[in-house]
């Protein structure tokens, strides 16, 4: 697999799995407006994953659905930050939201300058929607930023947030959130918590013969 396809799949896996985790709040968020917000953010993230898988699929001669759902759990490349299951912990959910969106903004800014026009183009398109995720995160940071449960969650998740980015982009994240750079939790073969998610996420697709038309 080329470096380009690998990069696209890492990004797509992050967006798909975070979208999935965000969607776990559908119907059970602490109040209705947040139910709408997290569901909508989840939908956007999964839409971004679809476009990124599509670009990878054109190169790998497969399709976006196959990349999203037909790989084995150990083949996913998503960052550990997005794999963690937080329901019903709102403080950690918001801490991840703020950290991920901040990291993702740095990654997208970088990708927009990519020499590959297709990659730069999809990054610019994704950025138009991500702006709203950051505004939402900003509102929550303003509300919870000084609460102990929130600051403890940020402390816990900080090494994971660094692991979302390639090493050369990490100093920018440390500067933006004003925290010292520490050892990151790197991308590695997904663990038990991811296996459960994968099992549920691919269950319907696996229930039908390969190549079934839906």
């Amino acid at each position, binding site marked *: 697999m080329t470096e380009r396809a690998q990069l696209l799949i890492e990004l797509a896996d992050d967006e798909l799995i975070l979208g999935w985790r965000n969607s776990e709040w559908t119907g059970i968020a602490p109040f209705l407006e947040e139910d709408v917000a997290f*569901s909508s953010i989840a939908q956007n993230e999964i*839409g971004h994953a679809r*476009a990124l898988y599509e670009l990878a699929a054109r190169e790998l001669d497969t399709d976006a659905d196959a990349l999203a759902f037909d790989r084995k759990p150990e083949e996913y490349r998503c960052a550990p930050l997005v794999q963690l299951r937080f329901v019903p912990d709102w403080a950690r959910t918001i801490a991840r939201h703020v950290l991920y969106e901040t990291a993702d903004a740095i990654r997208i800014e970088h990708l927009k300058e990519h020499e590959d026009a297709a990659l730069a183009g999809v990054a610019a398109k994704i950025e*138009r929607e991500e*702006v709203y995720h950051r*505004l939402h995160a900003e*509102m929550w940071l303003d509300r919870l930023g000084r609460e102990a449960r929130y600051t403890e969650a940020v402390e816990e998740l900080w090494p994971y947030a660094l692991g979302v980015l390639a090493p050369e982009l990490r100093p920018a994240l440390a500067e933006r959130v004003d925290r010292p750079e520490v050892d990151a939790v790197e991308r590695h073969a997904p663990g038990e918590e991811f296996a459960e998610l994968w099992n549920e996420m691919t269950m319907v697709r696996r229930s039908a013969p390969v190549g079934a038309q839906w």
Partner: protein
Amino acid sequence: MVTEVAVWEALAEIPDPEIPVISLVDLGVVKDVAVDGDRVRIEFTPTFMGCPALDAMRTQMEEAVTALGGEPQVDVLLDDSWSTDKITPAGREKLREAGFAPPAPRAEGAPTLLQLQKAVHRCPYCNSAATRLDNIFGPTPCRSLRYCTSCRQPFEQFKTI
């Protein structure tokens, strides 16, 4: 013989699957039409990336070309060629008439929290500027929720992207 003009006219008759008051041409998702004999190539630039209506739009464009006797090829662009500034002035007016506040111009830059909370967003029903942001997000990726304190009407605001 299919002509480009006939294709554009046919596409202008296709309603947006989710906001049927405006057509796909009003929405600005048809970037280009090229006719070569019977073959009709449409460059389709999608709106919001998670929008479930994208497949329906594509199918309807293919059907419209087939009805004209052409062979459709709809290419989905994954680049940054669509923004809410691509919605035509006529499309904006139709949105407003349907109670759907059209997007603010993007040309002024990416939206900020201050802009969403403090800038003038007029109510599509009574035209009052006394409206507040209730939720950045709404029932579909393209909408925010606002409330008009003059006519006490909640309304949907097309997000600027």
